[in-house]
């Protein structure tokens, strides 16, 4: 294969990564933006979404699309419920103290991971794609499902953007983010908003996971790398900036896709992590974000 088509393939793969990553990073960024909580367990919500997707899709027989669609709807809902309960039981009682919530979400990470290991096991299991059509390009065939993932992610991002900027829910969330005390004084149930945001963030991660399981198998340790990558995306994109998150996700996704074709993945991860740490040290507001508040 010539270099051009090779690059096209890498770009497509990178876009798929970016699609999943931007959803996940958006969840992380929302939770941090509104609640000022760094959710270390975010990767485990993603993993939980994938594991549940396997479970739901194997529950029903028949056409794989039926099971997949069921998973696409139910899996984020269940994960959101888990996150909601965790927020009410643990985070709310910590008064959202940044350091305490980090410790608590680390605890949550271990608990979810162990539950997945105990009930789901250590195997990686595939979920069948809802359709298996391949688009034949002049140089290679490409899975139409992967393109659908990009489209679905874009739709979901637009939907979230719409909710955040054009509806009352979004207004309430922004008010809470802007000033918690004042929001409370105006009768906004801050506790419920926080729990809702935490659940929404987790649901976005789970949604991303359901999209990815037909491509990548579900495994109890699968949350680790995406967590790190979404941290990177959120930092580079600037916290709380939706546009920055998308741009950074595309940047990271593409470079991940392209770099790992030419370099050893370990070296690529090493350099990427180091560079992002340096960004955080020298430009804490991110590359695209406005000045930090």
């Amino acid at each position, binding site marked *: 294969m010539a270099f051009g088509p090779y690059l096209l393939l890498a770009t497509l793969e990178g876009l798929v990564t970016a699609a999943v990553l931007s959803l996940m990073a958006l969840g992380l960024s929302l939770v941090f933006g509104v609640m000022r909580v760094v959710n270390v367990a975010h990767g485990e919500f993603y993993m939980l979404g994938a594991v549940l997707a396997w479970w739901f899709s194997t529950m029903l027989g028949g056409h794989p699309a039926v099971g997949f669609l069921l998973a696409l709807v139910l899996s984020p809902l269940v994960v959101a419920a888990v996150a909601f309960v965790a927020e009410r039981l643990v985070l709310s009682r910590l008064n959202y103290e940044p350091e305490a919530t980090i*410790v608590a979400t*680390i605890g949550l990470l271990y*608990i979810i991971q162990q539950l997945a290991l*105990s009930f789901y096991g250590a195997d990686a299991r595939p979920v069948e794609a809802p359709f298996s059509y391949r688009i034949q390009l002049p140089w290679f065939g490409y899975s139409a499902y992967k393109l659908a993932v990009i489209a679905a992610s874009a739709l979901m991002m637009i939907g979230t953007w719409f909710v955040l900027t054009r509806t009352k829910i979004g207004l309430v969330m922004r008010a809470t983010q802007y000033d918690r005390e004042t929001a409370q004084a105006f009768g906004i149930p801050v506790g419920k908003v926080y729990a809702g945001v935490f659940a929404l963030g987790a649901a976005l991660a789970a949604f991303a996971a359901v999209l990815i399981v037909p491509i990548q198998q579900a495994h109890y340790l699968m949350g680790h790398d995406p967590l790190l990558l979404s*941290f990177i995306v959120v930092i580079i994109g600037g916290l709380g900036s939706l546009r920055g998150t998308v741009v950074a996700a595309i940047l990271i996704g593409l470079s991940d896709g392209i770099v790992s074709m030419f370099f050893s993945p370990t070296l690529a*991860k090493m350099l990427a992590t180091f560079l992002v*740490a340096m960004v955080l040290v020298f430009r*804490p507001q991110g590359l695209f974000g406005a000045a930090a508040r």
Partner: protein
Amino acid sequence: MISLLPRGKTLVLHIGIVLALLALNFILPEYHRGVFSRVLVLAVFAMGYNIAFGYTGLLSLGHAMFFAAGLYGAGLTIYHLDWGVWPAFAMGLAAGLALALLVGALALRTTGVAFMIVTLMFAQVFYLTTLYFTTYTRGEEGLVLRQQARVLAFPGGALDLSDPSTRYLVALTLFTLVLGAVLFLVRAPFGRSLVAIKENEERMRMLGYDVFANKLLSVALSGLVCAASGAAYAVLFGYVGSGFAAIQYSILPLLWVLLGGAATTLGPLIGTLLMFYVIDLASSHTTAHLLVVGLVLIGLILYFPKGIVGTIRERWAPWLP
């Protein structure tokens, strides 16, 4: 009266604990003596972490890199260069100190949540580095140091560090030295400055303190102690693997210190010891030791944020250092 050196109850308590640990060497059954040796070395790791987190209020999520720097500094020089234990140990300390100064100088430009993420990322880079140079480190599988290489030479003789009793006593010696140093530190002007920085940075600046320099010194000292623990681990237990550089080993000292009590001299030991036996007990009944770690973390932060020694100090014994 106000005193600047530990005395009275404090001194008696700490000497008593060291003597009790010494006596345990002759009482404990073989298995538990092994556990205690490990706990003593890892308690040094926890004490090092406590200097930064407990006293100075710097919540790092990357201290595994300092432990691992000591571990690899000592382990690689013994394995590949046939160095003796003394110079290898010194190499471990130097590696930890250098890394702590470098990482501190960069990471301390940030505060709070950003500091946690930056330290986490630097530690991740370190971990990936140990994997990348797998030719030398053998990555997760790790290196096993030969028994003949683990001999501590003295002018008058030599100690075989693989002997269980020797190993226990050497671990206890290191533990005692570090405990004494920490006890001295908390009474010393520098210790007082660290606690005050944790409480109110701006006020410290307006008392004429270079807050950044003091924090950097704290991270350096903390990294040095953690590296001492790592280097001791390599020579005492003869195994060097990248698992020790992974994120779990950054979380564990946080857990130990929180459980025992942050900013207490004895908390790290008690937290490490207890957590070891809790996991030990849990793994003999279930395989779900991660669950235990998770539940303990959440339980602690919710109901016991000051830890065991911290709570005792608050309720009954305000003199505890």
